[in-house]
């Protein structure tokens, strides 16, 4: 009887865990932001009322590369299409994960915009945490976004 109950509990736990079998990560929604549902391209996306957006891409680490490879690949791609890198630094989250953050400036419709790209790499996945918006609005949400990135758990 006990064996049968154990099997049932195991199956129940497996069923509950099935939807979470994709790339797992955790991030805290910044203060003043709302999380958006059903984001196809993004594993997570949240926006402020002013249109500052925080998003997380979770892609398979294939071809398998390290943090340097993925960071360089993304940086080159962005610079080619007009992004201007203004800062780059290492990021260490509260969970102990290490990533690389590059901050860009870009003009869109004659307005200055800010774009932060933070890359985390695990054996299985590449996580790209993107944050961006009109620079004037972004500055107001900068601290909340920084806190959200530091809360990221790959």
């Amino acid at each position, binding site marked *: 009887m006990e064996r049968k109950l154990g099997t049932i509990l195991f199956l129940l736990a497996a069923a509950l865990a099935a939807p979470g079998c994709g790339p797992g990560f955790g991030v805290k929604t910044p203060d003043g932001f709302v999380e958006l549902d059903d984001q196809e391209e993004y594993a997570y996306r949240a*926006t402020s009322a002013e249109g500052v957006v925080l998003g997380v891409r979770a892609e398979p680490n294939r071809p398998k590369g390290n943090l340097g490879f993925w960071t360089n690949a*993304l940086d080159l791609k962005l*610079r080619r299409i007009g*992004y201007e890198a203004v800062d780059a630094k290492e990021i260490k989250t509260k969970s102990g994960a290490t990533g690389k953050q590059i901050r860009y400036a870009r003009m*869109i419709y004659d307005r200055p915009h800010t*774009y932060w790209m933070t890359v985390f790499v695990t054996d299985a996945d590449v996580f790209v945490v993107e944050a961006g918006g009109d620079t004037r609005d972004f500055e107001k949400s900068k601290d909340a976004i920084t806190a959200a990135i530091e809360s990221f758990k790959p």
Partner: protein
Amino acid sequence: MKLVFRLHGSRLGALTSLVASLWLAGCAAGSAEAPGAYYGEAKMAESAGAPQADSMGGAPGAPMEPSMAPPAPSPMRTESLSEEVTVSSTGSSPFSGDSDGDEESMAPAPPPAVAQAPAARAPMAAPPPPQRQPATPPAGANRPTQPTPTGGKRVEGPSDDGTAKPAAPLLIYTGGLGMEVADQPAIAPTIDKIIDLAEGMGGYLGSRTDTSVTIRVPSARFRDALTAIEKLGDVKRRNVNAQDVSEEYHDLEVRLANLKSVQKRLQEFLARAQNVSDALQVERELERIGREIDQIEGRMRFLRARATFSTITVDLSPKSKNQIVANGGTPPPPPRGIELPIDWIARVGLESLMTLR
């Protein structure tokens, strides 16, 4: 003669005077047929301020007694000159018909009238004077005895009364800009901004393609508009042209006034037409003049519209990648001949991030 001597024997001197007068009159009549001498006299008389020198019967330099002095200027002659100027500006005379009713009023003009015409004709009255001029008004015609207010000389003379002021120049401004924007997707939004800018200044969209836009802005805001547009991208080419159409516009004004004057007079003649033939001829002329007036008014409207609103054409193109790197202030990336076969990398960036769904 004996009878004369019997009647006026004591007045031999008077007889001598009479004979001399008759002889002089004969000389004057003979010399009037010499055009050269006559024209010279007419010009001299005109320059001396005698408006009706054509009425003088004496040859230049011929002795004249006080009793043979030229008659006082006739107001009727003044009017006939005015008519000539007005009519000749249209290129044809309404009096050129052969109707009997006009024959009376169209005695062949004496040479002085023709000789004086160029001085009275305005620059726009290009066509040559007609062969037959209304030298004298029709018998019994109740014509005004002074020049009509719309006479050609009055209208066309730029400073007849000395009070004419130079009109402000009528300028048509045209501007062209060639600009580069960040990339291809930025072209359409930039065009939208240019259109918004034009409408904000009281202008409107002229035309638009994928990479260019033509707007019309009030001429008073022409420079402001150019300055504002130049801020929307990197200006690579700029040209501004100002076309002065003042002279053309003024010419059109003069022609219009003359034509309207002729039109009015023709309408008067039409009302007084004696027979159907005359009426038809005048109506044909009225129709032709009406068409000409419409054309001139249309051209004037066009010129005014072009001068009121200036035209700015903006051609947009994306910056080359080399320029983006050079202007970016960051070290240029190493040349890469291949794209990584990883699709999602191409989608990373603000465009995807900020497109919420």
